[in-house]
C-alpha cells in the first residue's frame, strides 16, 4: 500500500514540478514582494518588511477608482450576459432550422480579435471632429442629444465598456447553454406535456434545474473573467486608463509595473494579492450558493 502511494507521487512529480515552478513559486514571490517596503527596482534594495504597500495601494485614488470600475463591470455584465445568453439559447433551441446558422453568428465575436473588435466599437461610439459616430447618429435620429461615449461622461464610458464586455463574453455562454439545453432528455418534455404542464412551469421546474450546473459554471467563470478584465478597456480607451478614469484592477497592476508611472513591483504585488483575495472570496460564496441550489 505504502509503496503504491510512493509510485503515485512519482507519477505526479512532473506535473507537481511544473505547477511548483510556474504557479506556486510566482505566488510566493508576489507575496514576498508585497511586504517588502520601499523596494527600489534599480538598486534591488528595500528597507524592511511590513504592510505599508497594502496601505499605500488602498489609499491610492487610482486604485479605488479601479476597484470601483471593476465592481461595476462585474455587477452589470455577469448577470446581464448570462441572462441574455439564456434567452438567446432558449430561442435557438426552439427554432431547429436556424440553429446552426445562428450558432455561427453568435460565435463570431469569440473567434474575432479583441483589439480589432475594440476598434470597431470605437468607430461605432467615438465622436470626432468629422463624424458623430454611428450610435450618435441613431440617437439624434430619435431626437436625443449626442453623447461622447469614448471621451465623454463617466456613465457613457462605463456603458460602452459594459456593452462591449457583454458582447465579447456572450458567444461562449450561448454555446455552453445551447448545448446544455440540447442535452436535456426530450422525454422529460414529453412527460410534462402529457401532464398539461404550463410552459412557464416547464421552464422553471424542469429546464432551469436541469441546466443549473452549467449556469453556475458560467456565473463563476464570468465573475472571475470580469474581475480580471483589462484588455477590453485598453481596446476602447487606449493605454492611459487612469487618465480616462476607466482603469480596472488588473490595469492598475500593469500600470504599476510597466506603465508611465511604473516601476513599483511592490505596489503591483499588493494590488494583485488584494484582487486575489476578492476573487477567492466571491468564488467561495458562489460555490456555497451553487452547492445549495444545484440539486443533482
Amino acid at each position: 500500500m505504502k509503496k503504491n502511494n510512493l509510485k503515485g507521487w512519482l507519477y505526479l512529480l512532473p506535473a507537481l514540478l511544473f505547477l511548483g515552478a510556474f504557479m506556486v513559486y510566482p505566488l510566493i514571490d508576489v507575496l514576498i514582494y508585497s511586504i517588502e517596503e520601499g523596494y527600489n527596482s534599480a538598486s534591488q534594495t528595500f528597507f524592511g518588511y511590513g504592510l505599508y504597500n497594502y496601505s499605500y495601494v488602498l489609499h491610492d485614488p487610482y486604485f479605488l477608482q479601479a476597484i470601483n470600475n471593476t465592481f461595476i463591470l462585474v455587477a452589470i455584465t455577469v448577470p446581464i450576459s448570462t441572462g441574455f445568453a439564456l434567452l438567446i439559447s432558449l430561442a435557438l433551441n426552439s427554432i431547429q432550422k436556424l440553429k446552426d446558422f445562428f450558432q455561427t453568428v453568435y460565435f463570431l465575436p469569440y473567434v474575432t480579435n479583441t483589439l480589432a473588435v475594440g476598434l470597431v466599437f470605437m468607430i461605432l461610439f467615438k465622436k470626432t471632429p468629422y463624424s458623430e459616430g454611428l450610435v450618435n447618429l441613431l440617437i439624434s435620429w430619435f431626437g436625443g442629444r449626442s453623447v461622447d461615449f469614448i471621451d465623454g461622461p463617466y456613465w457613457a464610458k462605463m456603458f460602452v465598456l459594459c456593452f462591449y464586455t457583454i458582447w465579447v463574453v456572450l458567444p461562449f455562454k450561448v454555446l455552453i447553454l445551447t448545448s446544455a439545453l440540447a442535452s436535456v432528455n426530450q422525454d422529460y418534455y414529453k412527460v410534462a406535456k402529457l401532464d398539461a404542464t404550463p410552459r412557464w412551469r416547464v421552464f422553471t421546474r424542469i429546464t432551469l434545474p436541469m441546466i443549473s450546473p452549467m449556469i453556475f459554471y458560467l456565473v463563476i467563470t464570468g465573475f472571475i473573467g470580469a474581475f480580471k478584465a483589462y484588455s477590453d478597456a485598453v481596446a476602447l480607451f487606449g493605454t492611459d486608463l487612469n487618465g480616462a478614469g476607466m482603469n480596472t484592477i488588473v490595469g492598475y497592476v500593469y500600470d504599476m509595473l510597466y506603465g508611465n508611472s511604473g516601476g513599483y513591483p511592490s505596489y503591483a504585488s499588493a494590488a494583485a494579492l488584494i484582487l486575489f483575495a476578492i476573487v477567492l472570496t466571491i468564488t467561495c460564496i458562489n460555490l456555497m450558493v451553487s452547492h445549495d441550489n444545484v440539486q443533482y
Partner: protein
Amino acid sequence: MKVVLKDLTKIFPSRNKKEKQGVTAVDHFNIEIPDGKLVGLLGPSGCGKSTALNLISGLETPTEGKIFFGDVDVTDLPPENRGVGLVFQNYALYPHMTVRQNIMFPLENLKGDAKLSKEQMEERVQQAADLVQIGTLMERKPAEMSGGQQQRVAIARAIVKYPDVLLLDEPLSNLDARLRLQTREEIRRIQRETGITTIFVTHDQEEAMSISDFIIVMRSGRIHQVGKPQNVYDDPVDLFVATFLGTPQINVFEGEVKDEKLFIGDAEILDVKGARNGKVWACIRPEGFIPDPKGPLVCHLNGVEVMGRDSSVVATHPADTAIIRAIVSSESEIDKALDTVSFSLKPYKVHLFDRETEERIRFDY
C-alpha cells in the same frame, strides 16, 4: 375506457431528398381494445410499437385514420386532454425532484374544477405510492433508487391523475432477469386493482404472453395477429407469428405436401388431410415431438440436455442443416448411445405455411 383504432397510419417523411418515400411506421391499424384489459403490443425492434403508443397518447399526430376513447374521437385532441398516462422506457423521472415531488407534479398542473387542495394531493400521492409499494421511499431522489423502484415511481406518476388509459413503453427492458419477472407480476396486479385499460409494449414474447389478456403481434408497422396469448401460440396465422412466439423457437423445415401427406426430405411424416399440394414450411413446436423408435421423423442425435422435469433433445435432420430442439418428458427413454433418434409428431403442434406467401395452410387431424 375502450380504445378503438381505425385505419391508423403514421408515415414519417423522409429527410433524404433522394428517397421520396417516407418510413411507414404504423400501417392501417384496425383494432378494438376492450375496457379494463391489459394488452401486450408485441413485435421485433423497429416495427413501430413506440410510434403506435405515441399516436395513442397524442405525442405524434397520425398521417391517416382515427383514434377513439370510448365513443369519443380523440384524434385531434392534444395529449394533455386525452387522459392518458405514459411510462417511458427509461422512466424519465425528474432527477432533481424527490419521489414525492415527482408523483405530485402532474397533480399540481390541474386547473379549474379539477384543482386539488394540498391535502387532497398528499392523499392521492400516498395512495398511488402505496399501490406500487414505494410508500417508504418518498423522500429519495431517483438516482438513489434501484431500477425496479424507479419503474414503480414512474407508474405511480402515470396513474396518480387517474388516467383512462395507461401506456407502458418497454417498461421492463432496463431490469435484470429476476426483477423483470417480479415487476411484470406487479404490473399485472396494479392493472387488476385499478382496472385501467393498459397497453404494454415489449419485444419479449414471453413477457407479453405471461401477463396480457390480449396480445397484438406486429411487424413492419402491420398487425399480423390479435388474440389471447394461448390462442395465438396454438394457432398462428403466418410464419412470422409462429416463429416469433415461443421459447425455444419453433422448428422450421422445408417440406412438401403431396396427396395430403407431408414430406420432409424423402420421408413421409404426417397425414395432412385437406392441405393442398405444394412446397411448404413445416413448423413443429419443440413440445410436439414424441420419442418413438418406429416414428417417421428420423434425425441425427446430437445430445440430450436434462433440465429436471423435461429433457431437451438436440438433433439435426438430414434434409436440413438447422438444429432441432425437442422438449420431451424426462421419463421418455432415449438411448444416448445411438446416433439417431426417431420421433412421431403431435399433429396439433405442426403448422404448415405456404413457401411463397408464408400464409397458414390448414389441415384436419
